[in-house]
């Protein structure tokens, strides 16, 4: 890398001592590029074995990559921490302005250690960290309000990211998220709870750095080439036009769309909440992450009348995506688009991971149907009977998940794996390695991927995509082939996430483009180097997972996925077990 690139600077912040310092880690950024690669190395060093995820020994690592602020689409920040949901590796990526802000402030990574005794928010600019009293912000359940207040208080409008938690993070719901620029999230695996445990309400970062390149002329030309390919690419147009919500209709037709806690594989009323339908009736604005021309963020306009006064409305913009429509729309059978937008707005307000929350409520609804929760679902003597499609009751339940007024909601706030261990119903608890299921019942590859993936997410090996390809050539759908395809994809994704390139742009950043763009920044790497580095990073992630108790040879398969047919028919337990075994063999050889 170029010697004066500020990427090499790691900012350390100790919340216990209220101190900060920087370290030059050029070695780390040269060896592991940035993002996930650098962050896993920092996490292994900074996180003591068996650390309590909600204790001061659990560090939060943010990292960006060399291409951030230099080329388009390198717009993600990687956050690594120990997950309070799974008890092992917590990894979550967010866009917004977070990545460019960290890079422009002059850092490649930020490590936050310790815990504050009193509520605090951090303001990070080019050379200082300010510890600001957040006593007046603590207890604010609405993440929207936190954002509004800090926007008014702090400088850097347009350049800054404001990462913050709502009520769910403060109350350490195991799947509380961190919100950035209102509509982007470190969504999965509970970073919000880790913020809450540190009494850290928000972080604002901004800066305006210069980054030098090796050859300005080559740089400008290559930039133009990547940019032109991006704006002309049909793959990016899909994200731009309807966004990921475009997938609702095809997956529903394919019978791969989990519905009613995956009792069903399609939703007969999905038409009203499809990407096309919401865009036509409610789409109010499309916005983009910083330094990405795609603008995949779709905001719907939701107008709600006040009951107390005629002709008085609250009008809000609500972000939506495929996974949000899945987890609240089809899983809970909310077919009213307005009901769906209303509930998504509430989830955003409290700062919960939408996917885990929807799956938790779907499990709870079925558990109540089966009378597994006799009276413990009641709050203050009032019965709260969850029913499919009844979004007003679900909105109450979301508030209870945050406030945790009784044992039942305390348990549900720890995820479906824990709740079902207490109340029964693990056979229909859609937990994969402790993380709630994403919206793909496409076949065995999706589920093997969720079970074995380092994040237990669809984002790891894209099993849903492998399943859909295999439909064309069913002979390829063997457990061994699936395992190999998943691990190969996951290896390459370590490179993309170390460059902090948005996975939506994986079609733009092929291996040649990655090498060319990196050479502008003085990285002299080869294809073989990238292959090797991808494997190394993945190996280190699993080492951390295994160190913290994950055992790929002792995996619980939710029975429900074996009952409801997928586009590949009913999935056999044998296929899943063999796939997991093959994948584990491959991981052990990394």
């Amino acid at each position, binding site marked *: 890398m170029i010697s004066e690139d500020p990427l090499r600077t790691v900012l350390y912040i100790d919340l216990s001592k209220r101190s900060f310092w920087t370290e030059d880690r050029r070695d780390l950024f040269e060896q592991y590029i940035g993002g996930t690669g650098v962050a896993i190395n920092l996490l292994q060093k900074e996180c003591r074995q068996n650390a309590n995820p909600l204790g001061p020994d659990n560090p939060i690592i943010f990292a960006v990559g060399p291409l951030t*602020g*230099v080329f*388009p689409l390198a717009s993600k920040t990687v956050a690594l921490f120990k997950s309070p949901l799974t008890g092992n590796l917590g990894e979550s990526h967010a866009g917004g302005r977070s990545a*460019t802000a960290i*890079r*422009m402030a002059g850092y490649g990574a930020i490590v936050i250690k310790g815990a504050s005794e009193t509520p605090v928010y951090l303001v990070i600019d*080019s050379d200082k960290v300010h510890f600001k009293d957040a006593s007046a912000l603590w207890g604010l359940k609405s993440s929207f309000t936190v*954002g*509004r207040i800090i*926007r008014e208080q702090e400088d850097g*409008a*347009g*350049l800054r990211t404001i990462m913050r938690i709502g009520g769910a993070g403060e109350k350490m719901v195991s799947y509380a998220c961190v919100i950035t*620029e*209102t*509509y982007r999230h470190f969504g999965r695996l509970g970073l919000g709870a880790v913020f809450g445990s540190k009494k850290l309400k928000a972080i604002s970062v901004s800066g*305006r*750095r*210069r*980054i*030098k*390149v090796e050859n*300005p*002329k080559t*740089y*400008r030309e290559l*930039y*133009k080439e990547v*940019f032109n390919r991006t*704006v002309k690419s049909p793959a990016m147009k899909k994200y731009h036009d309807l966004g990921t919500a475009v997938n609702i209709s095809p997956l529903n037709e394919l019978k791969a769309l989990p519905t009613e806690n995956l009792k069903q594989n399609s939703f007969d009323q999905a038409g009203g909440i499809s990407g096309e339908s919401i865009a036509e009736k409610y789409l109010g*604005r*499309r*916005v*983009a*992450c*910083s*330094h*990405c*021309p*795609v*603008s995949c963020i779709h*905001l719907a306009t939701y107008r709600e009348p006040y009951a107390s006064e005629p002709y008085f409305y609250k009008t*809000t*913009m609500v972000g939506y995506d495929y996974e949000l429509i899945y987890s609240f729309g089809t899983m809970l059978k909310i077919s009213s688009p307005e009901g769906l937008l209303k509930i998504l707005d509430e989830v955003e307000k409290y700062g919960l991971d939408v996917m885990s929350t929807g799956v938790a409520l779907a499990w709870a609804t079925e558990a109540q149907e089966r009378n597994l929760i006799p009276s413990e679902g009641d709050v203050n003597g009032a019965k709260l009977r969850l029913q499919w499609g009844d979004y007003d009751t679900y909105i109450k339940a979301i508030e209870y998940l945050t406030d945790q007024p009784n044992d039942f909601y305390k348990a549900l706030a720890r995820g479906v794996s824990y709740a079902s261990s207490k109340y029964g119903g693990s056979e229909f608890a859609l937990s994969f390695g402790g993380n709630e299921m994403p919206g793909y019942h496409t076949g065995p590859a999706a589920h093997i991927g969720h079970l074995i993936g380092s994040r237990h997410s669809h984002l790891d090996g894209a099993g849903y995509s492998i399943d859909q390809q295999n439909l064309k050539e069913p002979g390829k759908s063997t457990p061994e082939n699936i395992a190999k395809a998943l691990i190969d994809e996951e290896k390459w994704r370590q490179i993309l996430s170390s460059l902090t390139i948005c996975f939506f742009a994986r079609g733009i950043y092929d291996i040649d483009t990655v090498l060319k763009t990196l050479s502008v920044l003085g990285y002299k790497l080869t294809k073989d180097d990238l292959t090797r580095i991808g494997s190394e990073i993945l190996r280190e992630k699993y080492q951390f997972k295994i160190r913290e108790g994950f055992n790929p040879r002792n995996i619980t398969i939710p029975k429900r996925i074996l009952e409801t047919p997928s586009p590949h028919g009913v999935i056999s337990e044998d296929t899943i077990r063999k796939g997991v075994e093959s994948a584990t063999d491959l991981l052990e050889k990394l």
Partner: protein
Amino acid sequence: MKRLAVVDVNLCVGCQGCLFACARRFGDAGLSRSAIHVKSAGGIERGFIVTVCRACLDPPCAKVCPTDALKPRPGGGVILNPQKCIGCGNCKEACTINAVFWDEDTNKPAICTHCGYCVDFCPYGVLKLEEREGGISV
């Protein structure tokens, strides 16, 4: 003379491609030399404010420059002579629309030259380089 103009701010998605393009004029990545700005209008849901130099015919920034480093450009706007600039920041203070930005690396203003390089990197048609007719444009 041509000048940079905002065609329709409602088309802006906040990608900030123009900011990075502006810095790239000089061959740098990053933002320090960028002379254009995009921020939300008080929350992204409300849309964006795009700040560009309006190429004033009688520029307030040039009037307060103590060293004549900023000279009015024929047809509007200003030209910076960095050798003369002492980094006092008067120009930044004087700009009514906050379109004089600051390059912390050089401690001098970042001034829009109305070159139009940013226009090519706005895929939404927010910006254009327009001919200023008769010296006045609104």
